[in-house]
């Protein structure tokens, strides 16, 4: 055994201060110990990562849904039916009309902001006509409209037979259930309509069950109704279906109202507000649940770390006996906890983004765009959760080496 010698490493140690600074660097040895630590405890760390990942998945999925649209969630609560009506300001019963040109203006998106979106729009012309044989004439409301759009606006309609899909189809019409029943009409039958000396016939393509006023109306192409009423180029009102919630609908009403002076633009309030309201309420629950799930993740990490801490007590005692400072030992453990947070966070973010897509498709029948900014946010949160859960490891810092290394 050679005599005690001064070694180059001891020279490199230098003064007390320099030695201290030397230890603060993340040297190669630090990463080496770190790697061994991770591998040695891979079972428990896997459990901790699982706990973190599950929390991260929920977090990421909900943040994604929230970002992609508090719009998407409420947007997809699209109102059933028309939510905006455009009508002439001086309407009295069914006699006042406006220019059909209005449709071009609306179609061009005049006055509609980018945020809102008009899903479907149809002009309507109403008139009261006599239907059936002159001997057994029945008064009926005839509604002329763009029948292709009407089907889109009223998605809940059930059609027995065939719907009319071409707005210029002058041969076919659709009859409401009650009207068809009164007039004894079935799909394929012809119906004769008369108004002020003018006549119009069409074949009933389908019978509509709408569950509302439409059940007693007969739907024909707009041109046919205009001709029958002797009001070419005129319409009674426009029904619009706007995608969105109350803010979007009100925005469309404002913009259209401004762009179409002399006309009345009003929202159909009934359904618009109620649906969004419900989700607002649920949102509170969702947030609370996510917070609780994060707490559970932290608990899971805590449990795994507690197990780790237990296994490492003697190691920590030894390291302290070797002159390891609490700081340097803790740095290792915190790096380990942070790694759990990062890995769990990354896995969870990926899974969360996928889950958000899936929720969008299956629950809301809408495409959710993955928002990549969710990932760093989730990872950051999960690292904090992990560091919080690493409390047992931090408590190890207080371990007294003498107690651990006791012999008897």
């Amino acid at each position, binding site marked *: 055994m050679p005599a005690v010698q001064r070694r180059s490493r001891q020279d490199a140690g230098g003064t007390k201060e320099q*030695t201290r600074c030397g230890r603060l660097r993340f040297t190669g040895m630090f990463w080496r110990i770190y790697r061994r630590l991770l591998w040695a405890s891979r079972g428990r760390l896997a459990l901790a990562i699982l706990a973190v990942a599950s929390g991260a998945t929920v977090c990421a999925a909900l943040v994604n849904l929230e970002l992609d649209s508090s719009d998407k969630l409420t947007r997809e609560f699209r109102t059933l039916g028309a939510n905006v009506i455009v009508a002439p300001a001086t309407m009295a019963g069914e006699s006042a009309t406006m220019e059909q040109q209005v449709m071009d203006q609306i179609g061009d998106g005049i006055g509609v902001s980018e945020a809102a979106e008009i899903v479907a729009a149809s002009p309507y012309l109403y008139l009261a006509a006599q239907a059936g044989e002159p001997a057994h004439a029945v008064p009926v409301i005839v509604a002329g409209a763009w029948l292709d759009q009407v089907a889109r606006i009223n998605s809940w309609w059930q059609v027995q037979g065939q719907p009319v899909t071409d707005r210029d189809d002058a041969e076919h019409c659709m009859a409401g259930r009650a009207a068809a029943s009164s007039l004894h009409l079935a799909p394929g039958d012809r119906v004769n309509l008369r108004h002020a000396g003018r006549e119009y016939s069409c074949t009933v393509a389908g019978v509509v069950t709408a569950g509302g006023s439409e059940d007693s109306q007969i739907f024909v192409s707009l041109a046919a109704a205009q001709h029958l009423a002797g009001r070419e180029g005129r319409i009674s009102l426009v029904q619009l279906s706007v995608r969105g919630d109350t803010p979007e609908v009100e925005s469309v009403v404002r913009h259209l109202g401004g762009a179409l002076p002399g006309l009345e633009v009003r929202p159909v309030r009934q359904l618009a507000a109620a649906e969004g309201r419900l989700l607002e309420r649920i949102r509170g629950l969702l947030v609370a649940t996510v917070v609780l799930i994060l707490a559970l993740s932290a608990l899971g990490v805590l449990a795994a770390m507690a197990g780790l801490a237990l296994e490492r007590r003697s190691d920590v005692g030894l390291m302290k006996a070797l002159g390891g400072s609490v700081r340097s030992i803790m740095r290792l453990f915190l790096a380990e906890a942070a790694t759990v947070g990062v890995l769990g966070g990354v896995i969870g973010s990926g899974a969360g983004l996928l889950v958000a897509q899936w929720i969008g498709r299956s629950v809301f029948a809408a495409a959710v765009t993955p928002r990549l900014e969710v990932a760093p946010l989730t990872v950051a949160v999960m690292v904090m959760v992990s560091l919080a859960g690493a409390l047992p490891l931090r408590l190890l810092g207080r371990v007294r080496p003498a107690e651990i290394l*006791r012999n008897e």
Partner: protein
Amino acid sequence: MTALVQVENVGRKYGSVRALDKVSFEVEPGEWIAIMGPSGSGKTSLINILGGLDRPSSGRAVVDGMDVGSLGERELTRYRAEKIGFIFQQFHLVPYLSAVENVMLAQYFHSVADEAEAARALERVGLGHRLTHLPSQLSGGEQQRVALARALINHPKLILADEPTGNLDETNEQIVLELLHELRAAGHTLLLVTHSQEIGRMADRRIELAHGHLAQIVANVT
């Protein structure tokens, strides 16, 4: 020559249990001291105090000019890293670090890890061919040898060994004792706790404790 270790009336109480009571002695540099006594006599408490793992309740313990009892937490950490080399009965190697990494660990906490130097230290104890083995792959004797290399790597002033051969079979015991002899011959100061009379006789002096008191100090005549 100023003594390396000066123990003055050191006492240690754990609650109402008195583990050490008014123990005083000195150790010169280069001496091999055996600390002996039946179990419960306070041997381990004494070693722990000298090694900076514990503080005396009363009295002073001065090692290399430093009053161990009065050091702050940080200073104590540095003291352990720089001045002391520990050898335990249960070896206490980190199970997931290889032999050379276990030695490098001590370097790391001291200042900077140096793999080449650690490898050389292991070669010197005859384990040059087992550098990358994990403790579970080493025999008891080999593990203790790694612990020995670890204890020496930072050139400590004082080597403290608590029943270093207690867990070893005869063959390995001999090997380790050989190494301890070599250390002594090289001029290291060695404090060894043992309850074996045979090992006690290998030392320069025997400090015998009984019920926490210093019973006697016996010099071994060679």
